[in-house]
């Protein structure tokens, strides 16, 4: 297979970027998308050209480090992470446009690499249950109904890749935040901080400069872990109740 790649190149956060077009040939359909970029980089290095910088780590779809906008779709045409996307999903001769996640709270550091530390700060604002090591009660002292445990798990599968933000027309981080609020809110252990959690996290989210949610659903469609939109409703419900009963 061969492809024309239009790749966003940007030397650093301060520099202006632009698209650069590359040709790549002899790609096998078993190669992953990132292996195709690895090969491009080997060829660039051989020509003493600066290789394309992109993030990836586990390459098995769980760490959340990779993430590219591939011809207008976050993580490309399949519902998976960029690292689990294979070239057989493309047709030989295609022109593929590769861009970084675009959102101002995710500034581009170089080429296709963005800074997602805003997500860490949202978790810092309240995405946890306050329990010190050693202070935990016996695990079986609090049973958790299976449906709640299952829903908590479904929400907890979020890998924090940022595809939701990238795909959202508003660049909102709502799905990421709502997944955490739902995960912890479904569990009995998460109840004491339920109201304060959602208030602080939403405040931090807005402060980071993410857009607001208008319930379009692009986030969930792009989510490699298929986190459903209903978590956003759960967050909204929690937020409404928290604002109604806001402690003075």
């Amino acid at each position: 297979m061969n492809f024309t790649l239009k790749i966003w190149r940007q030397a650093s956060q301060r520099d202006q970027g632009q698209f650069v077009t590359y040709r790549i040939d002899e790609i096998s359909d078993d190669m992953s998308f990132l292996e195709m970029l690895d090969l491009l980089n080997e060829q660039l290095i051989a020509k003493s050209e600066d290789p394309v910088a992109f993030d990836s780590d586990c390459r098995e779809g769980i760490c959340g480090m990779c993430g590219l906008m591939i011809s207008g779709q976050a993580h490309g045409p399949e519902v998976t992470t960029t690292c689990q996307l294979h070239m057989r999903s493309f047709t030989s001769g295609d022109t593929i446009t590769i861009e970084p996640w675009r959102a101002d709270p995710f500034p581009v550091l170089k080429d296709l690499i963005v800074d997602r530390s805003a997500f860490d700060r949202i978790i810092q604002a309240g995405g946890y249950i306050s329990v010190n090591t050693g202070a935990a009660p016996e695990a079986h002292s609090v049973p958790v109904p299976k449906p709640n445990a299952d829903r908590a798990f479904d929400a907890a599968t979020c890998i924090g890749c940022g595809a939701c933000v990238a795909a959202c027309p508003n660049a909102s981080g709502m799905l990421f935040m709502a997944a955490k609020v739902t995960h912890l809110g479904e569990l009995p252990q998460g109840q004491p901080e339920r109201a304060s959690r959602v208030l602080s996290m939403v405040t931090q989210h807005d402060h980071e400069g993410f857009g607001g949610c208008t319930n379009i659903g692009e986030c969930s469609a792009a989510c490699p872990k298929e986190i459903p939109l209903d978590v956003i409703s759960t967050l909204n419900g929690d937020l409404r109740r928290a604002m109604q009963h806001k402690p003075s």
Partner: protein
Amino acid sequence: MTDTGHDPLQPAEDVRTAADAATPAADAAMPPRQPAAATADGLIEGLYRMGEPIADTKAPEVPAANMWETHRFTNKMVNPTNRRKLKVIIVGTGLAGASAAATLGEAGYRVKSFCYQDSPRRAHSIAAQGGINAAKNYKEDGDSVYRLFYDTVKGGDYRSRESNVYRLAEVSANIIDQCVAQGVPFAREYGGLLDNRSFGGVQVSRTFYARGQTGQQLLIGAYQALERQVAAGSVETFTRHEMLELIVVDGRARGIIVRDMVTGEIETHLADAVVLCSGGYGNVFYLSTNAMGCNVTASWRAHRKGAYFANPCYTQIHPTCIPVSGENQSKLTLMSESLRNDGRIWVPKRREDCDKDPREIPEEDRDYYLERIYPSFGNLVPRDIASRQAKNVCDEGRGVGPKVGDFRRGVYLDFAEAIDRMGLDTVKEKYGNLFDMYARITGEDPYATPMRIYPAVHYTMGGLWVDYDLESSIPGLFVAGEANFSDHGANRLGASALMQGLADGYFVLPNTICDYLADGPFDDVTDRSEVADAAASVSDRITRLLSVNGERSVDSFHKELGHIMWEYCGMERSEQGLRKAVELIRSLREEFWRNVRVLGTNEELNQSLEKAGRVADFLELGELMCIDALHRRESCGGHFRAESQTEDGEALRDDENFAYVAAWGWGGENQPPVLHQEDLIFKAIELKQRSYK
């Protein structure tokens, strides 16, 4: 300081002669297996020197069951108000690192946490699938702390330290309590209580799990605890920062030199103690189930500053991974071992059939080799055996799947019979997610054609040597998680890596490091020359890497190193192969420093430069692994020496000569390493030969 490769003490010609002398036939007949004696120049086998024996001096002299309690009582404590004056550096944010940082932060120490990824949540603990063991005995099936301890020591083929393993089993139950309280969504039964499953061939159900993503859920729990401390101001995180040197002043670990991977700035961070939780070194094989960024640099830099590296040759190779599909493959993916419960493993009897459609190969032309060789265990033999036999049939030229190079690496894992027996729906329900994963990666439909699997490197039991306090041979340098060697001996049981990481980080390290910190805060060393020297050495090395400007990319060296390691220090090791590997690695290292091409500058985000530093360290570690594998002339756990096997081809341990930990000291630049032996003394458990027949 020079890093160039060839050992002047060991001309390549000599190695070749020695290797040629040891023909395979001679290997089989070779009289056992004692460590060789030193020659007149003090070199043993031309490769290493003997150092003083060492021992753990921290574990109290009481029975194993009372040891931890006694130790915690006799340890020195740090007054809560003094903790604020004590700084701790933690490198790595996996299960061990994140949990340690959170716990020490909660206790009131001033913690700095470093990771090379863009967020602490990305650490590779996240990829662990199966589960986490804990001696909760919720199933009332006879589990106990002692049984978990026993299983772990036995599973490690009696090459781990009793005291550490007993403590691991002891604190295992607390981990589950802690994680549940943090909101880890473990699998539950309809009554709302936690579910367990059995795992890795033990006879009890003690594995807690969160579907196939236990590692992810546990890591997110630890990460959230860590971020909570960041918000509280007790922990400061440094993401996209890579540790490149350890600062040792007056014999104590006092800080690290890191590179800001975005700006290239070389930063000095000082502290009262340094904790490495930087994971394993499986990426020395290039292709492994590790993440792309996993590396040995933090551990190796510490090793070069005086920390002993223990049992580097102990690597675990997992039998059920998705095979390599092409020359450009960057990574291997594990599939749960549970597939072997219902799938049947086979290869064609004849080489000519290897490129046929497997469905067209009739039953009588198939070789279900595990069922043939091990009639009682069949496809459920332990990991190391399943892996080795897969390699054997592929070496015979009967591997299947695409040729990579001139070689097919793969065997069939066939569910046709299971689908007939259980029905398609049952198979879907049980294994659907794994089949989907396989289909996504290979593009083949595993319901219609047999899957292909092949072994892959997946965990390293070896690591920096630590005592009962998890303190390395450098005072003030602690090592936790996969980065240390302590708990798994020569082979790790399934679902025990997560247990160890969290045990170390939540419960062990915070209770042992205080004994060291009680003597702090230590003198300010900001102006000491050792600090400036460490930073200068990092800058020099980077300058050297950037100035070679040779012909070959970093990845091409890494691939070649991985090929050497896999071929000669992989599933089956022999004297001849290991000697050849040492020679090949030395010449590759020499070429690396002469011919590597690293473009760009230090003062930017430069991924080639990052990789180059890591590969340079792998090139040194690889040699030590081979030397360790060569000197251990026995088979144990994940270390299989062709010369040490029973008549049936099973691993043959040699307790008389090798019941020790091989803790290697850095001998100096281009100098042979120094072997320190820690005898393993078994008091609570009797040594036995493992048997699977």
